């Protein structure tokens, strides 16, 4: 019965009830959309810049945040912790442990005139960070292009005031520092909100056609050193040896001197001794000495011919040939 009654009544009650329900649902949906489209997160390396009707209102730090949706608040995320990099005169093709680079076709970027009107081939890197996201977003359009243009201009200005020797050999660090100061100054003048982290001069070379000549200077330098070293080596081989030999010659001469004098003294002393005895018996001693000598000599001789002093024509007796052979 109750059911019946209720079925009867709805005629004007159900639409009423369902209208309220629809409105509630609609409100819930709208609120839900409002919240969900209004929620946003800011990553640790970013900040969020909020504009209301185009006007800047807030900068939000990393975390979960809420903004008014439906295009009233707009969000722009800016990576303020990220370090951006621009390369000049070359491009990294594939970064990695062993990066590959290309320098082809970037000559216009890297070739520049030095103060002595020579040409240097300079490759460098600019690393920068967004220091002020507001200035970065609202003060200057196309900031990358601006940094590139300025960097080329400042680098050439610095290099133009230095000799090619300074650029290529002597003062790379100074040049990088000066570029950094100049570039930062210019970017500040523009109110760009950019902070230059580092300027790294990569390869600084003479231009390709001149490279062999520069290398030749180095090889000539080394050649010079080599030749001089070889000469000294020769000197060091010869001179100490000659000094040693000279010493030896003198030592030998001294040896000879000692020997000579000693022997002379010995011989003289011997003679004096013999003479002292000889003085007392001259004839006998002389004969004895003679005979003793003959006694010593004769057995050693090949042949001794004893010939009568009257005999003439000795030659036929001698077989000289035979004697010679023996």
């Amino acid at each position, binding site marked *: 019965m109750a059911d019946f009654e209720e079925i009867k009544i709805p005629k004007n009650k159900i639409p009423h009830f369902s209208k309220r329900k629809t409105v509630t649902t609609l409100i819930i949906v709208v609120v839900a959309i409002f919240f969900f489209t209004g929620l946003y997160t800011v990553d640790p390396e970013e900040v969020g810049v909020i504009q209301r009707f*185009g*006007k800047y209102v807030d900068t939000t730090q990393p975390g979960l945040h809420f903004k008014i949706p439906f295009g009233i608040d707009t969000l722009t995320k800016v990576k303020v912790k990220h370090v951006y990099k621009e390369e000049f005169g070359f491009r990294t093709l594939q970064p990695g442990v062993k990066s590959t680079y290309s320098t082809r076709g970037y000559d216009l970027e890297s070739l520049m005139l030095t103060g002595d009107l020579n040409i240097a081939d300079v490759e460098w890197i600019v690393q920068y960070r967004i220091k002020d996201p507001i200035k970065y*977003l609202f003060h200057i359009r196309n900031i990358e292009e*601006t940094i590139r243009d300025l960097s080329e201009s400042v680098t050439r200005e610095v290099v133009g005031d230095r000799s090619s020797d300074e650029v290529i050999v002597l003062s790379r660090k100074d040049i990088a520092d000066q570029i950094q100061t100049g570039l930062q100054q210019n970017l500040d003048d523009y109110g760009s909100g950019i902070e230059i982290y580092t300027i790294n001069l990569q390869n600084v070379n003479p231009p390709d056609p*001149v490279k062999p000549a520069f290398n030749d200077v180095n090889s000539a330098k080394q050649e010079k050193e080599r030749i001089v070293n070889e000469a000294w080596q020769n000197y060091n081989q010869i001179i100490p040896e000659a000094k040693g030999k000279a010493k030896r010659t003198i030592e*030998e*001469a001294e040896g*000879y001197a000692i020997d000579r004098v000693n022997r002379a003294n010995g011989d003289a002393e011997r003679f004096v001794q013999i003479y002292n005895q000889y*003085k007392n018996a001259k004839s006998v001693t002389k*004969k004895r000495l003679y005979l003793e000598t003959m006694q010593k000599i004769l057995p050693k001789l090949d042949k001794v011919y004893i010939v009568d002093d009257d005999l003439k024509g000795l030659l036929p007796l001698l077989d000289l040939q035979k004697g010679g052979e023996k």
Partner: protein
Amino acid sequence: MKMNKYSLIILIIALIVIFNSFFTLDERQQAIITQFGDPIGDKITKAGLHLKIPFIQKVNYFEKRILEWDGEAKQIPTSDKRYIWLDTFSRWRIVDPLKFYQTVRSESFAHGRLDDIISGTTRDVVSSNSLIELVRNTNRSLVFTEEYQDNYGGGVQEEIIDMGRNNIANQIFQRAASLCEEYGIQLIDVKVKRINYNEEVGQKVYERMISERQKIAAKYRSEGQGSSAEILGKKQKELDQIQSEAYKNAQEIIGRADAEATKIFADAYNRDPNFFEFLKTLEAYTATMDNKNTMIMTTDSDYYKFLKDTDGTK
């Protein structure tokens, strides 16, 4: 129901009207309002929500930020008749959007104007300055490596810079800036991005650089040869000195010893030269005669005289 239908239409119309009475302006933008094409009021630069008369007034947006202009590299002769490629760039902004709107209307047209103005002034200014003025910025004295100075003396001639790169760029900027005003454009700066020699001059510069280095290399080589010869000469001299001194000293020593020996002998032998001769001769016999010798002696020799006669008198 009929009533509802009308109210809905009215509501929609009202919404459209309301929406059309407001406009937002971004921080990056500025705007002027035109009414049937006629500009109304001042430029609007403040970002946020703004009012206008719906449908009748139209909002024209312009950039408020600093904008870029990068010209094409141009071949220009300097006052010292050197042909160079000069590449300049500039930053600018729209300061008077109304004038801008009336004269150039869009950015791409503005670029065309800037091309004309900056290229022209650049050509004028550059061609009345020498190359060195464009390259150098200050009178900072250049530093060279020792090897370079050795070859080119201290006399690496340095020209005095009157203007310098930045002043020249500034002069271009000053002239161009005043020409830009009538377009509602404020020029912020003009800078020289690149200066390069043209092909022909570049080739000559390369040749000069090569010959400079060749000179230096040749100098190193001949220095090497020179030092080497010097060292070898020194070696030969010292060698000769060492050897001859040693010879001299040795001969002196030997000579002294010989002299002393001679004196010793003389002193001794002078006691009886005759006996000395006898003794020395006997010694010599002993020393020199051996089985290679054959001796023929007569029986009247002192040794064999007794073979014929016991008295040995015959």
